[in-house]
């Protein structure tokens, strides 16, 4: 499904100057239907990885490959990747004043569908679905009628990310610290959204600092990312081990 091979990426510098290298030969394979978690210390490259896979041009890929279902992603524009089913739940979602939330989500959904040669969702179907999913993620009608994320708390912004993930039903979900700033009830909600989408073919990459999200989303594998590389992989028990003993053991080993 998502295959990352020997990926090197650096910050795109101004005026042709190369920025620092963040990803230094990262290799990862998330098979169809699987949930993989990535844990690691601050500055390890977790958010860079999510942005590079989604196509942010602040980073420059200098070597390696990223494919989804065997098709190259790195040559595609961010919106083309989205249409192929790559979804990124942002660590810091944007506030976009003046953009009506419902209109934006519908425009985005239909743009993805059009790129895949699918029909537009009718206004009535859209409304029905968005109401249902808003309820699932715990956002009131009033919130989804506002300009996008304007005046939302950190937790509400994360709920808005989950609302979009539920609406778009992406092929592959990257969740970048979706749990940060969430209380236990909200973590449970995130677990419900993910578990409802787990259908044996959809893949997930869950980036987190803490083990507790993984109580609600059972990962098939856990990887430790440090200094731009995967330094250790294991089963769910690895997350518990990290929680008690920290990252140092693996960083030194790397």
């Amino acid at each position, binding site marked *: 499904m998502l295959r990352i091979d020997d990926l090197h990426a650096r910050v795109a510098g101004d005026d042709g100057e190369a920025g620092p290298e963040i990803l230094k030969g990262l290799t990862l394979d998330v098979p169809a239907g699987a949930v993989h978690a990535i844990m690691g210390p601050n500055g390890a490259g977790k958010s860079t990885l999510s942005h590079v896979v989604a196509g942010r041009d602040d980073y420059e890929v200098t070597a390696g490959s990223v494919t989804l279902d065997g098709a190259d992603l790195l040559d595609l524009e*961010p*919106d083309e990747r*989205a249409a192929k089913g790559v979804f990124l739940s*942002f660590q810091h979602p944007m506030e*976009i*004043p003046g953009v009506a939330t419902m209109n934006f989500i519908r425009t985005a959904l239909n743009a993805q569908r059009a790129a895949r040669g699918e029909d537009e969702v009718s206004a009535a179907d859209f409304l029905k679905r968005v109401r249902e999913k808003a309820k699932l993620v715990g956002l009131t009608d009033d919130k989804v009628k506002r300009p996008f994320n304007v005046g939302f708390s950190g937790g509400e912004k994360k709920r808005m990310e989950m609302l979009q993930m539920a609406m778009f039903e992406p092929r592959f979900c990257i969740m970048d610290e979706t749990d940060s700033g969430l209380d236990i009830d909200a973590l449970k909600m995130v677990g419900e959204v993910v578990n409802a989408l787990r259908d044996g073919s959809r893949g997930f990459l869950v980036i987190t600092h803490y083990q507790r999200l993984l109580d609600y989303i059972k990962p098939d594998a856990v990887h430790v990312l440090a200094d731009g590389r995967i330094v250790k992989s294991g089963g769910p028990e690895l997350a518990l081990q990290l929680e008690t003993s920290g990252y140092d053991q693996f960083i030194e080993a790397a």
Partner: protein
Amino acid sequence: MAAARAQDPTPMEASLLEAASGRGGDVSSAARDAFAARGLPHRRIEDWRWTDLRAVLRDPLVFAGANDVGAPAPSTIDAFVVAVRGGEATWDGEPPAGVTLTRVAGAAVHDLLAEHPTAIAATALSHAGLAVHIADGVSIDRPIVFDFSTAGAQQHARVLLHVGSGASASVVERHAASGGAFVNTTLESTVEAGAALERYVFQEADGASVQCAVAGVALGEGARLRQHLLLTGGKLVRMETRLDYQGAGVEAEIGGAALIAGGAHADATTWIAHNAPGCRTRQTHRSVVRDRGRSVFQGKFLVNRAAQQTDADMQAAALLLEDGAEANHKPELEIYADDVACAHGATAGALDAAALFYLRQRGLSAEAARALLIEAFVAEAFDGVARDDVAAAYAAGVAAWLSAGGAA
């Protein structure tokens, strides 16, 4: 003998003076003398330094006849339409009840515009002004459209608008110019105590055409004004507003947006004099500029000593889409009263790269993402437009600019 000129007139100025000498009446001849002394405004006049009308109008141009009109006005707004053709106002059918239209020659210039260079030219050169009188206490539901559409010629026109006390009315101005036209218009208005005026301006021009319009509006006690402008510029375009709060408790909401493509120029200048206590002004301006475009915004609040408890706020923001785009924004406060709340803010920047990435990650193309952010930026200039059909016309105008390459 006219007053001495500071410098030699250009061929255009000489031809305008000659044309003006054919007009009779004291007002016209006084205006002709004033024009002879000043000529067309140019960059050495502080208020016109970014908009040099004289420089772009050097060559004489034929005066418009009744048929020198541009594209017909879009009919999405249900309105009573007055078309100004060849310098004279024409209309079909009966005006709304309570509205009187008359053509008047030689009407005195509104005090607010007595020293204004393009108003002086309009007074010297227009055949007859159109006087629109709205009776006291009358509420006019259907807007009145003034259509100044002109093609390939020059036209000078005056509209005098009187809104009686307690009356309410909406006017829509369509300034469309094409084929190297020059259109110079004035709106001279008095809004009496307790009256409400909504003024909606739509401007469009091709890259060869020049437009200048100035509106002078005096507002009585408790009068309300809502004004919105959408400018897309032209070879040189200036849409100026001068307001005089003469009575206490005037409220004005002013929103303007300029969408400027490569090579185009638009100037939205406003001068708002707070001369009475307890008035409230809210002003928003938005400029969106492409490479080699120029958007000028000069916004001035004058708060005189009598205008205690003034509450006035001006926010101007510019979005520069490419390196060669230019916005000359000049917000200015001049305050002589000591118990007031006045503020202004000005920002300029490019589209937010993080927001663009966010939208594209959700599936929007680069162009669609830019268009969405530009629309959102501009929309604040049209907040509070009371009429759905006018709001839709503004949204359509913005969408048309974007689809013509504004977001490419």
